[in-house]
C-alpha cells in the first residue's frame, strides 16, 4: 500500500497538466493528503516487518542489466516517508495563494514530493538513483520561476550543486555495480542483496567517500553547503519547505542506506572525517547565522547547522547515534518546514525579510498567530525539551559522547550559538519595535511606540488564512507530539538501524 504514495503523487502531477488552473491547488491538496494518510496508515498498522528492509513490490525492469523495479520499507524509510507526507501537505497549504502558473507550480512541487517518496522506498540502486536525480530539475523551475531574491542565481547554484553530488554518486554507483555484476550475485543492483555483499577493500576505501560525499552535498555537509542558504532564500515558501523538509533528507538518507550499508569498512575508515565535517558544519553555520540580516538566511544556515547533527549521528556508527540521526532527519524536516513557513507568512504580508525592517513593525501585535508559531518553532529549533529537536539532538549527543567526546564539547558551543541566533531572529522579527513586554506598563509603552512607528503599525496586514493555520498547526503538532513521545518513532527506527551491518560492534 505504501507504494501508492509514489503512484498517487505522480498521477496527481500528470493530471495537473491537463486541468484548468482553478483546480490545481485542490488536486495538489488531495494528492498530498492521500499520500500522508497512506504513509500514516502504513506507519501505524505494522503490516510490514519494520526491523528489516522488507520488499513491497518487485518487478523486473531491465533484466539484461539486473535492474528491478523494487520497493522496500523498514522503520527508517517509513519515518522519512511520513515526514515527506507531512511536509508536502503543509507545503501545499502554504502555497494556497499561488496564482501565477499554478498548474506548473504544483506539477513541479508534486514531482519533488513523488521523487522523494521514491528515494525513501527504493530497494534497487538504479531505481533509487533515478528518483534521486528526478528531484533536481523540478527544484530549478520551482525556484527560478516562483522564487524571490536573486532567484535565478540561487536556482542554478542549487541545481548544479545537486547535480555535482549526483555525478559523484553516479561514479560510486557504477563502480559498485561493476564489481557486484562481476561477482555474479543474483541481482547486481539489489540493495537488500548488496547489503550482504562483501565489496573488496580497495573499492570500499575510495568508493565510500565518493558516494557519501555525493549524497552529503544534498544533506548540506560543510564545505559543500553553500547552495543551501542561497537556495532556500531564493525559493518560494513551499520550495524552501520542501528543500529543508525533504530534499536535504534525501542526501542523508541515501548516504545511510546506500553508502554506509554497501561499504561498511569504507565507512569505518572515513567516519572520523564525517564527524569532523559535521561538527565544523554545526558550529560554522550557527556562527554565520548569527550575523545574517535576512530572516530566511538565518533559517537557511540553521538548516545546515541542524543537518550537521544528522551527519554527526551517522558518524558515531552506533545504533543509538544513527537512530538519533534518523530522528533528527524527521525532526528537522518538520521544524525546518515550519520555520520557512513562518518566514513565508511574514514575507507575504510585509514584503520584506530584512530583520532591521521587521524590527520596526511590531509584528507580534499584528500577526499574533505567526508570532506564536515562531515561538514554538524557535523553541523546537533550539532544542528545548518537549519538542522533537531535543529528543533527537540529545540522542545524538549521548551517542557521540561514546565515540567522539571532543566533538560533543565543540557541539555544545554550537548549540549555544544556535540558541543565540534563534533568539536574535525571534526578537528582531516579532518582538522588537520598542514594545516593552514587562509588567503592567505594556499598554502605556505600546501607545508611546505607536507614535514613533505609526507608519508600520497603521497598516493592516491581511489576516492569516485558514490554510496557513492548518499547515502551521500540523507541523507544530507533529514536533510537539514527537518531542513528548519520541518512542513513537524510535520504536520503529531502532530495530531497523540495529539490523544494519556497519555498526561498530
Amino acid at each position, binding site marked *: 500500500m505504501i507504494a501508492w504514495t509514489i503512484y498517487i503523487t505522480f498521477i496527481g502531477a500528470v493530471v495537473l497538466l491537463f486541468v484548468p488552473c482553478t483546480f490545481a491547488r485542490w488536486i495538489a491538496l488531495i494528492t498530498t493528503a492521500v499520500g500522508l494518510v497512506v504513509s500514516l496508515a502504513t506507519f501505524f498498522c505494522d503490516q510490514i516487518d519494520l526491523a528489516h528492509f522488507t520488499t513491497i513490490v518487485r518487478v*523486473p*525492469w*531491465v*533484466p*539484461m*542489466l539486473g535492474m528491478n523495479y523494487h520497493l522496500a520499507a523498514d522503520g527508517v524509510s517509513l519515518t522519512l516517508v511520513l515526514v515527506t507526507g507531512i511536509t508536502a501537505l503543509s507545503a501545499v497549504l502554504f502555497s494556497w495563494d499561488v496564482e501565477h502558473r499554478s498548474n506548473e507550480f504544483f506539477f513541479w512541487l508534486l514531482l519533488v514530493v513523488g521523487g522523494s517518496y521514491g528515494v525513501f522506498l527504493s530497494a534497487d540502486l*538504479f531505481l533509487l*538513483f*533515478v*528518483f534521486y*536525480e*528526478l528531484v*533536481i*530539475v523540478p527544484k*530549478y*523551475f520551482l525556484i*527560478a*520561476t516562483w522564487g524571490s531574491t536573486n532567484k*535565478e542565481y540561487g536556482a*542554478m547554484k542549487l*541545481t*548544479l550543486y545537486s*547535480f*555535482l553530488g549526483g*555525478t559523484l554518486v*553516479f*561514479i560510486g554507483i*557504477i*563502480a559498485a*555495480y*561493476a*564489481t557486484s*555484476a*562481476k561477482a555474479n550475485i543474483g541481482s547486481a543492483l539489489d540493495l537488500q542483496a548488496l547489503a550482504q555483499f562483501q565489496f573488496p577493500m580497495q573499492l570500499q576505501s575510495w568508493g565510500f567517500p565518493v558516494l557519501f560525499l555525493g549524497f552529503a552535498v544534498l544533506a548540506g555537509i560543510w564545505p559543500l553547503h553553500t547552495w543551501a542558504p542561497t537556495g532556500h532564500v531564493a525559493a518560494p515558501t513551499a520550495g524552501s519547505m520542501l528543500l529543508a523538509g525533504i530534499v536535504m533528507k534525501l542526501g542523508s538518507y541515501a548516504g545511510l542506506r546506500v553508502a554506509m550499508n554497501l561499504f561498511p569498512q569504507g565507512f569505518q575508515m572515513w567516519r572520523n572525517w564525517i564527524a569532523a565535517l559535521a561538527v565544523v558544519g554545526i558550529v560554522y553555520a550557527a556562527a554565520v547565522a548569527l550575523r545574517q540580516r535576512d530572516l530566511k538566511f538565518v533559517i537557511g544556515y540553521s538548516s545546515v547547522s541542524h543537518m550537521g547533527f544528522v551527519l554527526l549521528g551517522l558518524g558515531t556508527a552506533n545504533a543509538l547515534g544513527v537512530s538519533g540521526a534518523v530522528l533528527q532527519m524527521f525532526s528537522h524536516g518538520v521544524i525546518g518546514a515550519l520555520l520557512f513557513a513562518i518566514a513565508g507568512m511574514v514575507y507575504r504580508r510585509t514584503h520584506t525579510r530584512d530583520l532591521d525592517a521587521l524590527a520596526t513593525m511590531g509584528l507580534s501585535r499584528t500577526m499574533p498567530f505567526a508570532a506564536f508559531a515562531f515561538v514554538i518553532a524557535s523553541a523546537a529549533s533550539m532544542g528545548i525539551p518537549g519538542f522533537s529537536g531535543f529528543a533527537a539532538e540529545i540522542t545524538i549527543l549521548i551517542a557521540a559522547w561514546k565515540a567522539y567526546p571532543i566533538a560533543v564539547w565543540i557541539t555544545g558551543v554550537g548549540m549555544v550559538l544556535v540558541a543565540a541566533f534563534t533568539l536574535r531572529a525571534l526578537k528582531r522579527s516579532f518582538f522588537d519595535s520598542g514594545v516593552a513586554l514587562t509588567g503592567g506598563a505594556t499598554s502605556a509603552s505600546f501607545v508611546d511606540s505607536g507614535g514613533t512607528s505609526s507608519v508600520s503599525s497603521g497598516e493592516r496586514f491581511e489576516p492569516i488564512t485558514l490554510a496557513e493555520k492548518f499547515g502551521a498547526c500540523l507541523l507544530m503538532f507533529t514536533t510537539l507530539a514527537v518531542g513528548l513521545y519520541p518512542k513513537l518513532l524510535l520504536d520503529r527506527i531502532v530495530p531497523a538501524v540495529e539490523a544494519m551491518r556497519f555498526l561498530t560492534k
Partner: protein
Amino acid sequence: MSYLDLLKLASPEAIVVLTALVVLAIGLTTGQRTVATAVSVAETRKPASDAFDTTATASALCSFVAALGLVLSASAIFMLPQHAVLFHGMLVISPLNSLFKIISLALAFFTIIVARGDRFLPNRGEYLGMILLGTVGLMLLVGSEELLMIFIGLELTGLSLYILTAFDKSDIRSAEAGLKYFLFGSTASAFTLFGLSLIYGMTGTTSLADIGQKLSAASVSPLLFVGIVMTLVGFGFKVAAAPFHLWAPDAYQGAPIPSAAFIASGSKVASFVVLGKIVLVGFAPDAGSAAWHALIAGWAPVLAVLAALSIVIGNLVALVQKNVRRLLAYSAVAHAGYTLLGLVAGGRDGFSATLFYTTIYAFTLVGAFGVVGVVRRETGGDDLQNFAGLRTRSPLLAGCMAVFMLSLAGLPPLAGFFGKFYLFSVALRAGDNQGLLWLIAIALLGSFISLYYYLIVLKVIFLGLVPSEAERGKTSASIEMLPPPADFLQKSSLSVLAGIVLLLGVIPAPFVAWLIASMP
C-alpha cells in the same frame, strides 16, 4: 544468385531510390512553372496567392510521396528473410542491419516532417530527393560488411549531405557551411580510403569478417596501425569527434534546419553502426587497451583519446554559445565522445550500449531541430533570445524542448539518463580492475558541465521575457503571409519524438533486449 534474388533482397533500397526519382520528377514538372515566382517569394516575401498555392500543393505532394516511399521501404524490410549474405558481405541482411535500416528510414521520415513548411524551398522536389538519396546511402552503410561498399555508402551519404547543407541559396552561411563541410569531408574521405586500402593491401580481402581472421593470425605491424588510425580519422570526422569536429558548428548553424537535423541524426547513427562493425569485427584482434594501468597500443586507446577530447572540448565550448544550433553542434561533439565510450569498452555489451545511445540521441536531436525550425520560422532566428518566452507562445513546443534538452543532459526519467548509465556501466565493467575509470570520470564531469548550458536554454524558454509587442509587430508584418509556424502534423510528430525519448527512458528493456538479441 540471380538478379531477381538481388532485387528482392535489395528491395528496401530500391524502393527509396525509385521514390527519390519520382519525387525529383514531381518537383521538376510542377516546380518549373512556379520557380520564378517562388524565388521572388523568398526575396520579396509577398507572393501572389495563386502562385503560392501551386507551390504549396506541389510541395505537399512531394513530401507525401517521399514519406510514402519511406514507409513502403520500411515495410519491405519486414518482408526480407532474417539472414542473407550477398556478394561476400557487400549486402548483409541480419536483424541488426534491418533494425538500423528501419531507424534510418524513421529518421528520414521525421526529417521530412521537419522540412514541411520551410520557405526557403521553392524546389522541394530536389531537396527531398537529396534526403532520400542520403537515406539510401545510410541504408547501404548499415547494411554492408565489406570495405568497398562501406566506402560507397559513406560517399553517397556524404555527397547528398554536402548538397543538402548548401541548399539554401538565399543564405550565404548555408553556402559557407556547405563548402566547409565538403572540404573537410572529402579530406576525411581520402584518409579513410587510404586507410582502408592499406588494410586491404595487408590482408588481401575487403570483407570485414575475413579481415578479422587474417589480422588475428598476422603479427602486428606499424603499417597496420597507420591503416587503422587513418580509417578512424575518417570516421572521427563523420561522427564529429574532436579534433575532427571543426566543420560541425558551421554546418549545424548554416545549413537549412532539416539538413542539420539529418546530419546530426541519420548520418551519425549510421556512422556509429559501421564504425562499430569495423573496429569490433574487422579490427577486433588489434583492440589494444585503454585501461590506465595497462595501456596497449591499438584502436581502443585512439578512440579513448578521441572520446576524452570530444567530451572536454565539446562541453567547454558549448558553455559560451549564444546560438542554439551552434550549442547543439558542440554538444553533439561531446555526445560523440560519450558514445565512443561503448566502443572503447568493446564487446557485444559495449556495442549495444553505443547503439542504444546513438539511436536515442538521434531521435532527440531531430526533435530539438524540429523545435528550432519552428522558432526560426516564427521569429526569424535561432539565437538564444529568439527562444525567449516560448512557453507562453507554445506550451507544447516548450515542453517538447524541455524533454529533449533534459534527455541530452542525462536526467531521469528520460532516455538520455538510461543511455548514459548503460554506457558508463558497460565501460566500467569492461576489462579488469575498472581500467576505464579515468575516461568515465571525464565523461561524468563533462555531463555535469553540460547541464548548465542545457538549463540555460530551458531558462530562456520558460523564464525569458516574450519579445515586446512593438518588436513583434515589426516582424509580424513581414511574415504575415508565411505559413503558420507549426501545423498539426509537425506538432504531433514532435510530441511523438518527445514521447519516444520519455518511453525509452522509462521502459528501455524491450529496445535493449532487441539490440542485444540482434548483435552478431
